[in-house]
């Protein structure tokens, strides 16, 4: 029994090649770490404490039901302000109660408005607003992190949906050809000409778009591009000798497509993936920037960007969001570049 599945030698060679492309490889590693960290962002950036020890009992407030202030002997029934609780406990040296706060002790929604200063407030280490606050007094770093999590999951889900439809339909068009192919070619041509941005604007003005409605609209208008590549590639592969031999041996359509044609077209799909992710992030950001994206107060890069551009006197707003976007998109592009190179059958290309 094998402990790990045996990759085919070609794939192994491609992975090795990818690993040897340092820039892309490390970008991929950092990007993956960022995504993993952001999925547990509540443990790093949150107004709820990680651990509270109160009169011998330990509390883990991060996930789960809210804890009213009265739980810890504070005189209110709404959710405990753990930052204040920490200060409160520290002022009583005799007592053994303590609070451990996350790295950034703010969530993406709460407004922190110190007296006599007006938002946006500049970055401050002592207040733990490492990137300052926005025009409403919310922590910029917290909004960046949670905004990233939303943007990246949006881009990934969008990618999966678009590719499932695009690959399936493109394959089918290439495989069956004929009237089916002709029909869908025309459908796609017509559909591609619908002005996507206007449709989004109209929809956003009538309903409140949420994560899933926005996703559905983006999928409805975004699946087309992949079909063309898959269609051509399937056309090409299906006339190759190995497909004909498989056919001669009596392989079913399904087997021909899934075991022979798709694996041989994978390099096309993989090459486009990073760019599709970058596209997903930028389109969500652009829609939020224009005000047609996710409804407020959802943390979003686009909303932060639009605040930043109208508040150039508060440079931390625009620099932090632009910095974050450039970093993420640059890494995604490096990964894409490396993937393309790793999957390129020619190690050297000469341009004439």
């Amino acid at each position, binding site marked *: 029994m094998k402990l790990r599945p045996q990759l085919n030698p070609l794939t192994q060679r491609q992975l090795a090649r990818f690993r040897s492309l340092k820039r892309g490889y490390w970008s991929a590693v950092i990007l993956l770490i960022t995504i993993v960290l952001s999925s547990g962002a509540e443990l790093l950036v949150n107004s709820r404490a990680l651990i509270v020890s109160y009169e011998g009992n330990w509390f883990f407030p991060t996930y789960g039901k*809210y804890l009213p202030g009265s739980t810890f002997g504070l005189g209110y029934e709404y959710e405990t302000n753990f930052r204040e609780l920490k200060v409160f406990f520290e002022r009583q040296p005799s007592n053994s109660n303590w609070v451990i706060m996350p790295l950034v002790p703010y969530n993406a929604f709460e407004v922190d408005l110190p007296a006599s200063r007006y938002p946006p407030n500049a970055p401050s280490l002592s207040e733990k607003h490492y990137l300052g606050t926005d025009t409403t007094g919310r922590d910029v770093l917290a909004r960046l992190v949670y905004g990233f999590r939303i943007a990246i999951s949006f881009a990934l889900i969008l990618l999966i949906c678009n590719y499932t439809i695009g690959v399936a339909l493109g394959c089918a068009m290439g495989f069956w050809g004929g009237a089916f192919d002709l029909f869908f070619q025309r459908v796609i041509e017509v559909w591609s000409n619908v002005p996507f941005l206007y449709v989004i604007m109209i929809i956003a003005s009538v309903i409140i778009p949420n994560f899933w409605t926005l996703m559905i609209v983006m999928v409805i208008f975004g699946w087309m591009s992949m079909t063309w590549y898959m269609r051509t590639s399937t056309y090409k592969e299906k006339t190759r000798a190995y497909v004909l031999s498989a056919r001669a041996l009596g392989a079913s359509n399904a087997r021909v497509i899934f075991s022979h044609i798709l694996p041989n077209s994978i390099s096309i799909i993989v090459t486009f993936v990073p760019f599709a992710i970058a596209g997903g992030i930028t389109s969500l950001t652009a829609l939020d920037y224009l005000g047609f994206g996710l409804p407020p107060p959802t943390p979003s890069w686009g909303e932060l960007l639009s605040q930043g551009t109208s508040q150039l006197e508060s440079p931390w707003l625009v620099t932090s969001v632009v910095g974050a976007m450039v970093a993420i998109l640059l890494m995604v592009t490096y990964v894409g570049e490396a993937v393309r190179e790793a999957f390129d059958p020619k190690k050297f290309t000469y341009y004439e």
Partner: protein
Amino acid sequence: MHLRMNPIARALIALVSTLALIGCGTNDKGNALPETPGEVAQEIVSYPVNGVLPKGLTWETNNEDPIFASADAKPGGTFRTYVLAFPLTIRRVGPDSNGSFAGYTRAGFLQLVSLHPNTRNFVPTLATHWAFDDDGKTVYYRLHPNAKWSDGTPITADDYLYTLDFMRSKHIVAPWYNNHYTTQIVNVVKYDDYTISIEGSSAKPKDEILYEYSMGPVPKHFHVLDENWVRENNWKVEPNNGPYQISKIEKGKYIEFTRKKDWWGNDLKYYRYRFNPNRIRVRVIRDVNIALQHFFKGELDTFGGVLPEFWHDKFKGKDFDNGYIHKIWFYTDNPQPAPGMWLNQSDSILSDQKVRYGLAHAMNIDKVITTVLRGDYRRQHTHHEGYGDYSNTSIRARAFDLTRANTLLDEAGWTERDDRGIRTKGQQTLSLRVTYGQSHHTPRLVILREEAKKAGIDLTLQLLDSSISFKQMLEKKHQIAWMGWSGGGLSPRYRQFYHSDNANKPQNNNLTNNAVPHMDNLIDQYRAATEKTDRVELAHQLEQMLHDTGAVIFTFKVPYTRDAYWRWMKLPEFRGTRVGGLFNPMGGQFWIDELERQSVLDDTAPKTAPVSILDTTYLSE
């Protein structure tokens, strides 16, 4: 009384009958109208005299009030300002005519009488005298004999009669005007070339009649009313009667107004020393922040600073430090708009008065004011503030008070709380949707939302396109409508907002679906009352009843105007009137010192300490 008809009706009659005069009542058509389709009535010279003045009219006028301009004012110079978009047309009425530029064009058309901004009395303008009929809805006017259109044609009674024809015409494609000049102003009668009467639809107190049933003339000799009117008048400069007329249109770039050399109104008491600049150039600058840069370069003379971020953060720099650019914060006292949270009382959650009260106590409006609004705005307590005696100043809005909010919500049965700390009752969560249409209000709502959580209320924010959000409110599909009605007029208005006739029906202004029988009663009495003291008393009661329903949580008022202006812009000693508008280009009292402009721009003018004026003359609290 004769019967007047609109041109379409006349044309129809001309078509169906060769006897065009039949059916037109009395001798209205003494001079036969050549108004058959395709041929238009341009030759009409004058309308026939149709009335006999009742005996014993008491003619009134007002030349006793103080003037509100400075004798020091120097005429001359060019005032430069901007708009964000080039107007789609310079017509006064019809499609696309109601944009932000309309204020400039309409200011060139005076009315029969106007309101003195400080005393709020009526003063003569196109009319020199007025008198009231005993029926309580008709007012007589003596017209100013010298009043002229900008092309030199005298303004006579015929232009007022023509106003009815014009405003009732389908060719102008202006349903609001069609309706107003049919249902509100029902008749205009000519007694001689300089005497008319206007009859309104219902009896009102005297000042209300002057206010509601006033109108301005339309130049009869200029217009050709046919189906092409809208298209042909998009860029035609209509003769007007105000001090300025459009002299140059550079499409997409700017529009220039020039002061008329011998304007007929130069000698009117309340119009002297005003309208001082020779030219007014309105440029198109499509972004506020870019416009601010133009202002800093001295290419614009003034810049509005009501928004806190402009006043506190962006109005800075060496020209402020050198005293070249001054700042002024001028409190005003005029009818305030009514912004607030309009609770839909037909909603299953908000139909409970205790919930409405609890919600009001959970709204930390003061925190919004002291934080994102920089402490500049003030709390609005009632619907009608700044209406003088009519305003009920004893009512205070419900203050932020978590204890009371919690008690009220507990009493209403919202006792359980879910994982997020939001109150629940049975299967229902205390989650309320706030519909709004201005993205720059999001910070205010975010703060309210965070504070409301403390009382266990979850507000979800529904930001829609502004026209779509308004439509949703008019169709009563909202839970909480975050919006404001504009203020104005002489006295409060209640019927459209709070009468049960409008409740639970779409497309009207009763956003709270308010239906209180006793309130209906008082509203009807208020509308019928013609004595001011009765009306004031009723208005106070109505305002109190509104407060007791808890149907509206009023939010902010901005009882001031703020500007930054270059030092060459001069204001009178009293700076401005009760209604503000310090640098209103079409009616302000300011003047321009062109010599000083040069020296300031050359940087040769003497520098002074920074100047920031706070004027609280008209601060009412």
